[in-house]
């Protein structure tokens, strides 16, 4: 436990030191980023140790807070979440040092590094906490630290709006968690997690209510559709290394909370599995559809996080269905696929956000339609972004494929033998995953193709250049990790076994019922064969073209002699067939000024896809609520002596209530 506590201490102390040293950008960056990287690497060692088979480590120190105690534990499940948190935090810190440096002249670098290190420390604490009070405190500080990181550029109207949305959403989510922990604490008579798990069977109604509270509370953080509304606002507004951290690992703490909750609530009824699969399908399909319709690169990535949370939830749903039906193979494959996708998504979404940050850094715009042709100017960023795009589209031989393969294999196995009422949700998962895969390929060929390929569409690209080594190195490492996890599938999945045992509460072996070693070896062989055949066809091409005339010319545009950059397909036109097919959900707004007359002077066309849940769900509801609450406004008048009176009155009321 000592290395992790040291790591926490390093993170907090260097964060504070960066805040104190805020007058010197150099000192703040060195302390903040250096401390974050050092602390994270320090914590990575025990996390990897537990993941690779060391026994769980725990510590409990009594505490003055009622019901609270500083009890922490690193078991396999915590370690599985700690690994991406530490890895991505270290890499994003290095990246952030280079990314924030140019802004030192306009704004102090102390606060962002203080909040960054605080955010990392709290995420670590959230996944190792074993006491509800400690957990909630870490959870709240994590939300607040990320809030202050999001609103760094608070002079912009849209950033303040995004921060506000995020703050309200995360507070509401916490309200449900507070109710959840208060209730389960009252039932079990303790705030310690191990008492929750040892409580035994809850009554079905109670377990169901707790499950719903947990899904809403943790789902708000994870970004379940329709609770995702803060995600596409907050992620684009934050600096890119923070977006990577928030999207790559912070939203996964919601998944962690949900999985941990499942270990307390006892045997799951079928409707939990149905609920999780339904949430997974709606988040996955709608998330990728909205991603496809976005014109802002970072907003696109934020919606794609909703999609990937959907895939993870599908995996969890399949796993819960497996536990419900007593099918070990289904449970293992579903949970293994979901948990592996947690790690995978941290790798490739972190990579993609860092890549998007490099693009923003170089061009000053996030608008896809103003970019293009960046591959020639930023080859390293482009290659890394392409790796991430292929991985997130679930293509072999990258890591995304392995996770989705496990969920699909489980669903296929289950659908081929289980009775109809259990097989139907699995078939929905199969069809949904197939559609999500196809749409994700469309979305990310668009994101990569329009931004990096073809000719530059606008002025911003003209001066674009490759970022410095501090920004390049983290992207390289993440890209290599995406390939490595893809090729090391059998061993990576075997390393998940201890975490699966925590989730399922039963031993997990390899073989027919357990970890599917055979199919994973098959995937590995197919991937190696793929690499060999690609090398073979590259060699054939090279051999054939050697000594032959190879010339360069303009793009063949069906006889049109002078193709221009503005004639290229744009991001909007590329997505149009799919967005119009799914216009029921997307409700894309089009603003068109068509050419008129014999000699048209100009024309324009613009599309915008706003969030349907936000626009027609939450916004009207909150506006109505704010009108109602306006009546209470007279209570908030800003006179401090009356506020003190409120406090005194409350204390008197409490005293009377306690005595009476």
């Amino acid at each position, binding site marked *: 436990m000592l290395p992790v506590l040291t790591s926490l201490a390093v993170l907090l102390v260097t964060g504070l030191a960066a805040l104190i040293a805020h007058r010197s950008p150099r000192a703040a960056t060195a302390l903040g980023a250096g401390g974050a990287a050092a602390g994270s690497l320090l914590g990575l060692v025990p996390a990897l140790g537990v993941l690779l088979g060391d026994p769980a480590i725990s510590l409990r120190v009594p505490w003055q807070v009622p019901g609270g105690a500083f009890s922490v534990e690193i078991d396999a499940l915590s370690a599985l979440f700690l690994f991406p948190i530490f890895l991505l935090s270290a890499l994003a810190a290095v990246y952030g040092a280079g990314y924030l440096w140019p802004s030192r002249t306009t704004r102090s670098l102390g606060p962002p590094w203080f909040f960054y290190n605080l955010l990392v420390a709290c995420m670590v604490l959230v996944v190792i906490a074993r006491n509800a009070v400690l957990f909630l405190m870490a959870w709240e500080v994590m939300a607040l630290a990320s809030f202050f990181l999001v609103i760094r550029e608070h002079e912009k109207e849209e950033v303040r709006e995004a921060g506000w949305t995020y703050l309200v959403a995360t507070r509401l989510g916490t309200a449900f968690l507070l109710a959840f922990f208060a209730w389960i604490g009252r039932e079990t008579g303790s705030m310690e997690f191990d008492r929750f798990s040892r409580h035994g069977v809850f009554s079905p109604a109670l377990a169901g209510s707790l499950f719903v509270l947990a899904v809403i509370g943790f789902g708000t953080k994870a970004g379940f559709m329709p609770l995702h509304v803060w995600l596409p606002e907050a992620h684009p507004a934050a600096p890119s290394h923070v977006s990577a951290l928030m999207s790559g690992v912070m939203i996964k703490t919601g998944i962690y909370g949900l999985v941990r909750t499942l270990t307390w609530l006892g045997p799951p009824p079928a409707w939990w599995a149905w609920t999780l699969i339904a949430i997974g399908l709606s988040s996955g399909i709608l998330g990728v559809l909205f991603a496809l319709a976005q014109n802002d690169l970072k907003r696109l990535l934020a919606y794609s996080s909703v999609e990937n949370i959907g895939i993870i939830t599908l995996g969890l749903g399949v796993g819960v269905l497996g536990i419900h039906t007593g099918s070990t193979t289904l449970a293992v494959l579903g949970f293994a696929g979901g948990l592996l996708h947690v790690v995978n998504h941290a790798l490739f979404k972190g990579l993609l956000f860092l890549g998007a940050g490099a693009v923003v850094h170089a061009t000053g715009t996030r608008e896809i339609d103003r970019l*293009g042709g960046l591959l020639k100017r930023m080859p390293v960023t482009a290659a890394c972004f392409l790796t991430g795009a292929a991985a997130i589209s679930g*293509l072999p031989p990258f890591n995304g494929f392995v996770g989705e*393969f496990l969920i699909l294999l489980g669903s296929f*196995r289950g659908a081929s033998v289980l009775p109809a009422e259990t097989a139907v949700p699995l078939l929905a998962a199969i069809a949904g995953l197939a559609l999500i895969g*196809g749409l994700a*390929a469309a979305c990310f060929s668009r994101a990569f193709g329009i931004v990096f390929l073809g000719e530059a569409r606008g002025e911003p690209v003209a001066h674009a250049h490759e970022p410095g080594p501090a920004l390049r190195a983290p992207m390289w490492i993440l890209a290599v990790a995406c390939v490595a996890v893809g090729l090391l599938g059998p061993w990576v999945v075997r390393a998940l076994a201890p975490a699966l045992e925590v989730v399922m509460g039963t031993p997990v072996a390899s073989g027919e019922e357990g970890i599917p070693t055979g199919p994973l070896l098959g995937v590995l062989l*197919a991937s190696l064969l793929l690499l060999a055949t690609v090398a073979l066809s590259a060699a054939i091409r090279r051999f054939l073209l050697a000594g032959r005339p*190879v010339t360069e010319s303009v793009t*063949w545009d069906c006889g049109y002699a002078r193709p221009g950059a503005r004639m290229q397909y744009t991001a909007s036109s590329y997505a149009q067939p799919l967005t119009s097919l799914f216009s029921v959900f997307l409700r894309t707004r089009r603003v068109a000024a068509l050419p008129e007359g014999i000699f048209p002077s100009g024309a324009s066309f613009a599309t915008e896809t706003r969030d349907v849940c936000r626009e027609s769900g939450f916004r009207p509801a909150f506006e109505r609520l704010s009108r109602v609450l306006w009546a209470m406004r007279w209570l908030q008048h800003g006179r401090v002596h009356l506020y003190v009176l409120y406090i005194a009155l409350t204390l008197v009321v409490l005293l009377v209530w306690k005595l009476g």
Partner: protein
Amino acid sequence: MSPTCLLPPVIALVFSPLLLGVINRTKARFAGRAGAPLHQPYHDLLKLLRKGAVYSRTTTWLFRAGPVVGLGAMLAASALVPFGGLGAPLAFEGDLLVLAGLLALARFVTVNAALDTGSSFEGMGASREVQFSALAEPALFLGLASMARETGAVSLGAIFASLSAHPWAESGLAPLLAAVALAIVFLAENARIPVDDPNTHLELTMIHEVMVLDHSGPDFALIQYGAALKLWLLGSLVVGMLLPVGPGSAPAGVALAGGGMIALAVLTGVVESVMARLRLLRVPQLLVGAGALSSLALVLAFV
């Protein structure tokens, strides 16, 4: 692993261009022409392989990598598909998912290579390709799931072996419906009528052919050969469902499957001769219809 397992990929590699020859000959006969010899596609490939290449100045390494990775994916996929009762060299539980993944990889690189040219035509083709393939994917997966349900197996070899023991004529219509759904996916994925017209790259039919407009010489040969392999592999899935052959029945099984492939090619040629291409707005309906057929096959498989 027996040495005969190397035969399915070898057969695919050798005979896949022949299917194109058969399709073109059928179409020629329908049009009242004698048509090119059946081995014409081989000559076309050899001719392209002997040429140099022209590249657009807009393009990058990605454009050159597109055909290479595309063909590589198809070559790897050919090791996954059994043929005529002969098991594939790579047969494992879930191999059908890897097959779908390899097809998706080939599509991803082709689409990106098309976008690399900066041509609006190729962008249009890429956009349509990703739309139709996204809609074809559920039909493919549900069709495969119905076969998994019917046979209780999750690998291609086991599915075909089990189907051969209970051919669809006895066991009900589920495999037949799934085969029809897969046949629609086969036509859509291989850019055949009624989804796309392989003979033209006019604006109205701009899907697959238009994406490869800028490729020339050996690159184009790699693309054409990859497309022929894809035609063969998806075709042998359809034939495997309609004419399932159990293990150990070679060489009669191989002959039967080979005959089935020729018949499928003739049928494709007939469809191309007697049908017009669907309007682009209608294509999604066809693909969703294929998905509905797959779902129906699933319902039947549960009964």
